[in-house]
Every structure is written in structure tokens, then in C-alpha cells.
């Protein structure tokens, strides 16, 4: 059998349901591994070990008596440290929240607890899920399990690192411009930014209200589907929540992508942000897998990426300033320098300019949905393989183009999965974006690809060698 810490949610839940694995045994395996190895990665900022053992024992007893409540019953998970957890410190990696102990659970935490999950702790992030990596905030930034000298990207850094390292099979992150998909890409795991409004943001410390998405990360697309089944759904206390039926995401994973029409925005990849030759080769190889599986590929033409980035970043800098304005005016020294640089100018943007950006978002979102209506999914790399972990120039947030932000602007579902490895061992990534509320097709495509390739068999060797 696979090492316990490398079991997927699907595998572990089957073993638990068959009484071949106990939640206590599984939880102890993760806690032991975290204790032994996480000093190399810093993926957790708070561990809830005793609570986890108690939840595991309770799950064990209930499953023996009544059977599992859900596929997550007895399965350990962790949360990016912007998800409020009653009685457990929630810091957003910021000195401003160093002693913040919420009295309520975020909506997602409530759902995972109700499903019988076992909370292992809270994951490192970038400050307020926006500024980083930073060495002048509450905790040091997390590191990439494939090579600790490299970045796990951000801002759901610790979440992605923890899953890749075998510290937890499940976690939740947040994605405002790519903060689930970027770390998922860097760490070679699966991460979904769901359709905007499909997963409640209640109790998730905001980055930018109009673009924030809560969503899952796990080792496989199948596991992401299992998590989506639990966390998706209408929340009347989240004003952005959509009141729509939740489909059976797991049942949608047929493995069949025959006839799937894939759009590729080649002008983004060849003209605006030309791919490195290695990333281009990995992307071409991924498309070839889909062609072999019976899909078709066609080019699609969208507005320039820079328009999507400009709109989102203009809106975001204002919303971020609105959220943090009081602290920026009275105690700016409490912010890390990266976040402070990225948000402080938001106070100087005029209301008209903010609204002009929001008006252009309408134009871009319509263009995105018009193109999406002509294909089933769109595919492109999520990002180039992760670089070294080092301070980024503070202006990079304003100047660095992104393959992910367009889908935040459109609100479309977008999944990042692993599609190979570079010569230096860092993962390549494939991004699969879909029509609004068609998260199931995105997950079906990701799952079919993963099952047709062997990339999910490889784990970070550095961590494994360290154990032995």
C-alpha cells in the first residue's frame, strides 16, 4: 500500500469506509510527518495536533458505529491562515492579526467539520493573501517541497506545499488573481478556482471582494472534486454567493473527453507572454494527450492579457486600501513592506477611475464568456516553473503579466494540474478554464488527463530522502 501520508482523499476514504484504515492512524501519520519535516518548508503556521487527534478519535468511533458521513469523514485537512477558525489563531500572516482568535468558523470550515474532516492546522500565506513573499511579517514564507530553495508561489503557499509534501491530503486556499492556481502549479498539485460565487467567502479574510474566490487544493483533480462536493453551495450570508444547484462533481469524472473542444489563446502564449521552450514543449505534449483521448483543439482570440491585469489590479488596489485604510493611516509600519507597497496607492485612485475599471471588467467578462461559448474548455499553462524563493521587486505585482487573472475577471472556473517536470525537477503546469458554473467539465478534463499520464506517481524526492 502507498505510504499513508501519500494516500489521496479518494484512496484514504475507501480504506476508512472498508475499516482498513482508521482516522487516528492516518492523522498520526500526518502529524508525525509534519513534526519531522515541516521545519524545512514552513508550510504550517499553526498546528492543531491535539484537536486533530480528538476529532480523529471521534470520527473513528462514529464510523465504526454508523459508517462514514462523507468522503471526508476522518480525513485530515488544513486551511490557509485566512480562513477563520473559532478558537484557533487566524493571522493572515500579518503582525496586525498576531493575536487574532476568531469566535466563529468560516463557512467552509463549518462544512468540512460537518463532513467529519480532521483539522490539522493553518497554512502559511502571503500577508493578507496579497503581499509577498515577505521576511518582515509574522512568519517566514513557505518553501517548495520539490526544492526548498524555490518558491511555492503565492499566496496559498503553505497550502500547496503541504499537499505536495504529504503533510495533508486536502486544503483550502483563496484565489484573487491566481493565488490557488499559482501555488498549485509551483508545487505540482491540483488547485481549483471555482466559478465566482460557488463557494462561500464568509469568514475568509478578504483580499479584494469583487475577485476573491475560495477553493480547494489536493493531489489530484478527483480529490479537488471531492472537496468541491462539500464546500460548494449557496450561502445567504455571502452577498456574492450564487443560489444554484450543486452538481455531483465526483460523478462527472467519467474519464471520457471524447469530443471535448479545447480552445487555446495562442496570442497570449506566443505574442504577449511568449512561453519558454521547455514550457511550450510540456504544453504541446499535454494537448497531444487530449488529442489522443479524442478531444479537439482550436485557437481562440481574447482581449489582451494586459487589459485583464490592468482592470483587476486597479479594482484590487482600491478595494485593498478600503479594507486596510485605517491601519495604513495610523500604523503603516505594521505591514510588511511588500504588501504596503502594493496597496498604499489605492487611496489615491479616484472613484471614477475605480468605476471605469469596473465598467471595463464588464466588457472583458462579456468577451470571455462569448469565447467560452464556442469551446468546452480553454487550456494554457498556469505559469512557468517556480523560480528561486527570493524577494520580488515590489512593483512586480503591477508589472508582471499573469496567465491566471483573466479568469478571475471573468469569474470562470479554472483548474491547475501538474503536466510534467522541468530538468531541474520543478513541476510544469496546465491550466484548464471552463464556462461559468461548468466546474464539472473542468474537473473531468483534469481528471482524465491525470489518469492518462503518470505524473501523479512522482512525489518530491527531497522530502522522501530526508525521511529515510
Amino acid at each position, binding site marked *: 500500500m502507498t505510504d499513508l501520508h501519500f494516500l489521496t482523499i479518494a484512496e484514504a476514504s475507501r480504506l476508512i469506509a472498508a475499516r482498513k484504515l482508521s482516522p487516528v492512524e492516518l492523522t498520526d501519520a500526518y502529524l508525525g510527518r509534519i513534526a519531522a519535516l515541516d521545519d524545512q518548508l514552513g508550510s504550517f503556521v499553526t498546528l492543531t495536533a491535539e484537536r486533530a487527534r480528538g476529532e480523529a478519535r471521534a470520527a473513528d468511533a462514529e464510523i465504526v458505529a454508523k459508517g462514514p458521513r462523507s468522503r471526508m469523514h476522518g480525513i485530515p485537512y488544513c486551511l490557509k491562515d485566512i480562513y477563520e477558525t473559532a478558537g484557533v489563531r487566524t493571522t493572515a500572516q500579518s503582525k496586525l492579526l498576531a493575536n487574532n482568535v476568531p469566535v466563529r468558523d468560516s463557512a467552509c470550515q463549518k462544512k468540512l467539520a460537518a463532513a467529519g474532516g480532521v483539522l490539522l492546522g493553518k497554512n502559511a500565506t502571503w500577508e493578507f493573501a496579497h503581499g509577498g513573499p515577505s521576511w518582515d511579517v509574522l512568519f517566514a514564507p513557505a518553501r517548495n517541497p520539490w526544492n526548498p530553495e524555490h518558491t511555492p508561489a503565492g499566496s496559498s503557499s503553505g497550502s500547496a506545499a503541504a499537499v505536495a509534501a504529504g503533510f495533508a491530503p486536502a486544503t483550502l486556499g483563496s484565489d484573487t488573481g491566481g493565488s490557488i492556481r499559482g501555488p498549485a502549479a509551483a508545487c505540482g498539485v491540483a488547485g481549483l478556482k471555482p466559478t465566482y460565487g460557488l463557494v462561500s467567502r464568509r469568514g475568509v479574510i478578504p483580499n479584494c471582494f469583487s475577485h476573491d474566490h475560495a477553493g480547494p487544493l489536493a493531489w489530484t483533480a478527483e480529490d479537488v472534486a471531492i472537496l468541491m462536493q462539500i464546500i460548494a453551495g449557496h450561502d445567504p450570508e455571502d452577498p456574492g454567493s450564487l443560489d444554484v444547484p450543486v452538481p455531483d462533481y465526483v460523478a462527472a469524472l467519467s474519464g471520457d473527453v471524447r469530443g471535448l473542444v479545447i480552445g487555446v489563446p495562442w496570442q497570449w502564449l506566443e505574442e504577449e507572454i511568449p512561453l519558454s521552450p521547455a514550457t511550450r514543449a510540456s504544453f504541446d505534449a499535454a494537448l497531444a494527450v487530449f488529442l489522443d483521448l479524442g478531444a479537439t483543439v482550436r485557437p481562440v482570440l481574447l482581449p489582451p492579457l*494586459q*487589459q485583464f491585469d490592468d482592470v483587476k489590479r486597479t479594482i484590487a*488596489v482600491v478595494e485593498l486600501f478600503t479594507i486596510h485604510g485605517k491601519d495604513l493611516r495610523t500604523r503603516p509600519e505594521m505591514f510588511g513592506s511588500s504588501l504596503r507597497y502594493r496597496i498604499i496607492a489605492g*487611496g*489615491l485612485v479616484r472613484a471614477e477611475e475605480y468605476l471605469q475599471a469596473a*465598467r471595463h*471588467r*464588464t466588457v472583458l467578462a462579456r468577451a470571455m464568456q462569448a469565447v467560452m461559448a464556442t469551446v468546452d474548455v480553454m487550456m494554457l499553462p498556469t505559469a512557468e516553473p517556480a523560480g528561486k524563493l527570493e524577494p520580488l521587486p515590489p*512593483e512586480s505585482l*503591477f508589472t508582471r503579466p499573469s496567465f491566471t487573472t483573466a479568469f478571475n475577471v471573468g469569474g470562470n472556473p479554472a483548474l491547475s494540474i501538474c503536466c510534467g517536470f522541468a530538468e531541474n525537477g520543478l513541476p510544469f503546469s496546465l491550466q484548464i478554464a471552463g464556462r461559468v458554473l461548468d466546474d464539472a467539465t473542468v474537473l473531468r478534463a483534469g481528471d482524465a488527463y491525470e489518469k492518462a499520464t503518470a505524473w501523479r506517481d512522482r512525489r518530491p524526492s527531497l522530502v522522501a530522502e530526508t525521511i529515510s
Partner: protein
Amino acid sequence: MADASPTPEEVALLARHAGLDLPAEYFQQLVSAYGHVRRMIDRLPLERARDDEPAHTFDPRAFMP
């Protein structure tokens, strides 16, 4: 403000209006950051029909008790 490189004096005026009274070190960061924000805003298309709505939604059902 069409200029893509706002002067420190222009930024100081805007900062006062925003209620930001920053130490010199942070003010220099503000000048630099605002230059980047200004360039983003100046790239936004502005020609619109009067009835072009922003991508805001207001659903009164979301606020019912």
C-alpha cells in the same frame, strides 16, 4: 492626470486628500507605487456609452434577514 510619472508634489496633494500622513520612507514608496497604478489606469479604455454599467451587482435578496 495624463502624465504617467506623477511628481512628488502631486502625490503629496493626493495623499493629503486621502488622509495619508506618511513618514518620508513610506512616502517615497507611495510615489513609486502610485506611478505604476497611474500607468495602469491610463491604459484603461474610457470611451463608453452612458449606460455601460460597471461589473457590480446588487441583488437585494442577498441582504434579506
